[in-house]
């Protein structure tokens, strides 16, 4: 029972962060048809910048309870790089998707050194900050309250995103564009503005995700390329372009990973990718994806 709870809470925590990044990936793919390999770089950028932001906040004498808000805010601020990158991506929208993929790969390479330039090659942490919120004890298991806050924040963001996409006028336009780009454009949707805002929103989800996770684990230069692997597993399991898929996929990957780490540590990524392959063999488009071709 204790072990089960450990896996459950650890898994859901990881899933909530993965969901944010995967949701960004889905949004950008759904509307723009671009698979953004740089989503992991945004995540890492969010993490490093979050460390700097919290350290600045501590120096400025901000009370400890507001750290999580500082982190979210720093993630939101960082999303300002979104429009800049979209401006570059804009040059290849009309090209083969191989070029779009490759251009985001170029960003992965560049961000790797941007991180190194500003924060150095050594991993950075916020020390024991996540413990400053205290612990929650459930029977024999105890875990940081911070993790619960992150799960809550992620659920809040997921609900807000759902409301935004389902209920607002702009969300409807986005969904229409995802459904049929040319038709949406013909009906007067401002495609240029949609591309810029969707990419920025995708970036924001990634940077906030990275910022939220950094109090619990170190920020390192391996972060971007490692996260991409998991985020990809999430969207492939859930189905490319589907928000519900991102949610379910993140939960599956988070739980499988947490389970594998406690049970068979050497199987961590292997287990995730076995799930990916099993899902794809059974359901080629993923759990919630649309049929291909």
């Amino acid at each position: 029972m204790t072990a089960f709870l450990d896996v459950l809470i650890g898994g859901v925590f990881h899933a909530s962060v993965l969901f944010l990044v995967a949701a960004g990936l889905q949004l950008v793919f759904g509307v723009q048809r671009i698979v953004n390999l740089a989503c992991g770089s945004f995540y890492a950028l969010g993490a490093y910048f979050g460390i700097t932001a919290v350290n600045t906040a501590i120096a400025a004498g901000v009370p400890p309870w507001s750290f999580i808000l500082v982190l979210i805010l720093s993630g939101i601020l960082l999303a300002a790089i979104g429009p800049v990158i979209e401006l570059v991506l804009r040059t290849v929208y009309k090209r083969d998707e191989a070029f779009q993929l490759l251009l985001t790969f170029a960003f992965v390479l560049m961000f790797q050194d941007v991180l190194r330039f500003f924060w150095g090659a050594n991993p950075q942490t916020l020390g024991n900050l996540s413990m400053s919120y205290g612990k929650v004890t459930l029977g024999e298991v105890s875990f940081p309250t911070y993790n619960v806050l992150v799960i809550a924040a992620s659920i809040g963001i997921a609900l807000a995103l759902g409301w935004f996409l389902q209920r607002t006028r702009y969300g409807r336009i986005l969904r229409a564009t995802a459904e049929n780009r040319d038709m949406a454009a013909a009906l007067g949707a401002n495609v240029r503005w949609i591309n810029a805002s969707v990419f920025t929103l995708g970036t924001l989800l990634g940077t906030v995700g990275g910022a939220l996770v950094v109090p619990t684990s170190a920020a390192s230069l391996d972060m971007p390329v490692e996260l991409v692997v998991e985020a990809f597993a999430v969207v492939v399991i859930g189905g490319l372009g589907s928000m519900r898929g991102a949610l379910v996929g993140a939960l599956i990957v988070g739980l499988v990973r947490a389970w594998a780490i406690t049970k068979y540590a050497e199987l961590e990524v292997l287990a995730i990718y076995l799930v990916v392959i099993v899902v794809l063999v059974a359901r080629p488009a993923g759990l919630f994806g649309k049929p291909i071709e």
Partner: protein
Amino acid sequence: MMRLALVAVAIVVLAAFPKVAAPYYVTLVLPALAYGIALLGFNLLFGYTGLLSFGHALFVALGAYAAAVLSSKLGVKSFEVILIVSGAVGAAVAIPVALLSVRYVKIFFGILTLAFGMLFHSFLFKFYDLTGGDTGIRVLRPKLFGMEFAELDKTSFLIGPFYYYCLVLLVVMGFLMWRIVHSPFGLHLTAIRDNPRKAEYLGVRVRLFRLIAFVISAVYGAIGGVILAINTGQADPELAYWTHSGELVFMTVLGGFGNFFGPIVGAFTFIFLKSELMGITQYWRFLLGLILALIVILIPGGLMGLARDLYLKIGARR
């Protein structure tokens, strides 16, 4: 005719290279030869069949590990045997992977191949007893046609007999690939790339042909991996990491994937570019990424496409 002459010149230059250039540069050409072979296969899949694999490093790593296991665990020293067995291992792994992957096209194919690549990477990384984990496995010096070359030290072996062996291998495998892409089979592949549905109506067995192209490309990848591993004397899991697959795509696009020789040109340019940038600054990845971005945006045809455009422009002026 012109093309044949250029190829002949390139071969002569490469053959003369160890005699005139500093050993350091010769050791750079060796991996370029290896990548040249691997990318010939990769381009059959990407350039000719229209399937972008983002996990092709799997087969390069497979070749490297096959060479490592054969040479340092099973005591097989003959390079010919290593090549044949590694190629066969590549094909054997490629068949199930391809059976699953070729049901998809475009980005889905890319992601699924990436998944397989990462699966293999984590296998190499985590099964320490079998694969040596992150330290990998040593690759011992092979015998070429049964000859040991014991009197040569490691570098002179690599830039001497081994270099020429690999150069010949590249030429032979290049010739084979030339025949493949210009055969009816190759024409089927380009038909599938350009319009899979129409090809199907015409009676082309699309999935079977994609599968065969995949398997051939895997064999080329594995053989490239063997040379790469012998050159470094090591097979390590990074060879299978997805960023390495990204580099393979990078090289191909750099040289130009619409062109038969593009990937080979890309391999040589990439290796020398990377080495030069690493000499200039520790932030070479940034510059490499910048160059990749510029190529993608400004010259999607790659270097060969650029050369072709220039050639046509000069021709038009005359």
